[in-house]
């Protein structure tokens, strides 16, 4: 981007630039370290971890934690399920959200304020979990992929961000298309969407991450273990003994719950996070500036 912005570097700007770099480097350190820590714990020997000796470098490197996780035969199927839910879900999200956002971005859309209110209202008012469950049950979606991908088909928050972006696309472009005899469908398809790569990339990321991390809807809507996404299995391992301090009545059961070791838990976190982290670099190029300008000129 800055290639197009060659300006004289004033002293003030130079100082700012240095400070800016330092600030961001601190941020990088602060955000990378925990992830790094989780990683080194996951490949360290559990004894050193439980004695709090692992801080900067892994100690007694071992992959046993990963082996244990992957020994669980359910995990591969769960991974596959997650990938399916994420792709199908995100596709539905993107299609429906743009179909919702585009009309709402048009000031000449008759009834727009009413529709916007209808949509925005749902952000603050919901019937709650039980009525939604009953609806999903009535529609016959329980224990199918549709119970996972349809109820969250549009995230209103995301959709409104999308609409805001559409609104900022110069209307003159649409006007001229109108004059050329294009209808709204064609405009959406041929003009708006090609110009919206940055926001689409953002939305794909937001929705995909949401699906990847979601476990609650799978938990309540799915009954068969064979359909569980990976988060359900992994969360069970990570949470066990941390959140709810279940004092089971039989002492020994709890005493052995302690066996879910830190390195095992952290291996699980790494396993669940890494695949979705890899999505970002693919989308990142769309955040670059000039995408839209190129399209405009072309």
């Amino acid at each position, binding site marked *: 981007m800055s290639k197009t912005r060659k300006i004289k570097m004033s002293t003030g700007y130079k100082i700012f630039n240095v400070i800016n770099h330092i600030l961001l480097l601190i941020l990088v350190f602060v955000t990378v370290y925990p992830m790094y820590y989780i990683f080194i714990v996951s490949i360290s020997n559990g004894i050193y971890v439980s004695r709090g000796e692992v801080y900067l470098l892994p100690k007694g490197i071992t992959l046993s934690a990963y082996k244990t996780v992957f020994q669980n035969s359910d995990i591969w199927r769960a991974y596959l399920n997650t990938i399916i839910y994420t792709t199908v879900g995100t596709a539905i999200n993107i299609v429906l959200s743009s179909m919702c956002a585009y009309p709402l971005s048009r000031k000449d*859309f008759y009834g727009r304020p009413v529709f916007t209110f209808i949509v925005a209202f749902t952000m603050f008012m919901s*019937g709650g979990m039980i009525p939604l469950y009953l609806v999903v049950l009535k529609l016959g979606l329980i224990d199918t992929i549709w119970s996972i991908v349809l109820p969250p088909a549009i995230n209103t928050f995301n959709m409104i961000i999308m609409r*805001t972006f559409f609104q900022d696309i110069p209307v*003159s472009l649409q006007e001229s298309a109108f004059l050329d005899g294009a209808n709204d469908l064609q405009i959406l398809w041929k003009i708006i969407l090609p110009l919206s790569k*940055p926001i689409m990339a953002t939305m794909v990321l937001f929705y995909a991450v949401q699906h990847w991390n979601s476990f609650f809807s799978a938990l309540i809507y799915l009954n068969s273990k064979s359909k569980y996404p990976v988060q359900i299995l992994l969360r069970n391992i990570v949470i066990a003994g941390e959140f709810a301090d279940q004092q089971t009545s039989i002492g020994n059961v709890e005493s052995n719950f302690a066996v879910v070791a830190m390195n095992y838990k952290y291996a699980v976190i790494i396993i669940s996070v890494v695949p979705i982290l890899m999505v970002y670099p693919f989308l990142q190029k769309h955040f670059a500036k000039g995408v839209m300008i190129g399209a405009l000129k072309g």
Partner: protein
Amino acid sequence: MKTTQNAIGGKMREKRKSHFIRQVKRSKYLYLIFFLPLCYYILFHYWPMYGIIIAFKDYNVVKGILGSPWVGFKHFEKFLTDPYFWKLVRNTLLINIYGLFWSFPAPIVLALLLNELPNRGFKKFVQSVSYLPHFISTVVVCGMIVNFLSSDGFVNQILIALGRERIQFLMRPEWFRTIYIASGIWQNVGWGSIVYLAALAGIDEELYEAATIDGANRWKQMIHITLPGIKPTISIMLIMNLGRLMSIGYEKIILLYNGSTYETADVISTYVYRRGLLGNDFSYATAVSLFQSVVGLILLYTSNKISNKLSETGLW
């Protein structure tokens, strides 16, 4: 923004005489596009909304939502007359207001700082690592916070090295909000900045070129081009945040608070949780969330009005 309105306004004027049906006809493709999303909202949002009536009933499983007996405002009375309730409202509001003050601008600042980086590679690098904490589950994050702030944790070791006294951060009510909000920023600043980066990417590069030719420096460009360019996004995000002033998730608070910090840490959702969301009191829980929704809606409506007046951007 202005041009948008003028252009479409012009169109409107042309067709001012047009009849309702002609209006609809003219937007017919838009309705066609909007049809599926509308179905979605009706099916998965408005249909279940009838469930709200259990706030006015004593929910009974077998009788179902419609068949359960009406009890009027019993559940609302129960929590509105609870003397402790107003303390909860206060704590909820304070955490959210401080959060608005600190957490809301943080991703904007980050996006702007990133935007000013002359080095593309570094920018990409910072961008891609800054959102890492977003992926760590709350339970793990809170475990780390507790470790960090324990009496011989990292922070206290620094304090001691500086010749200060140890602070038992997690047992001091006055520290709770700071801890909650700071850790929230750490977790979400990178992730939150993505929206603004996308908005920044949408700004017309020619504007910068023109400004450069006019001799505007970076600071002026930021004030006059960059900020106005992302203003609509900022306004929308702000409005939506204002609508959420009354609600707060309980998971993280439950993991961080304890009896000695209830004074500042206990919020509506945690109290409801303790009181027995797990105890099957769905009617009570629904009543509380309905209360939160109504307050949220009022706030949303008001802030949207104000925003419409001030900046011509708004949700609707």
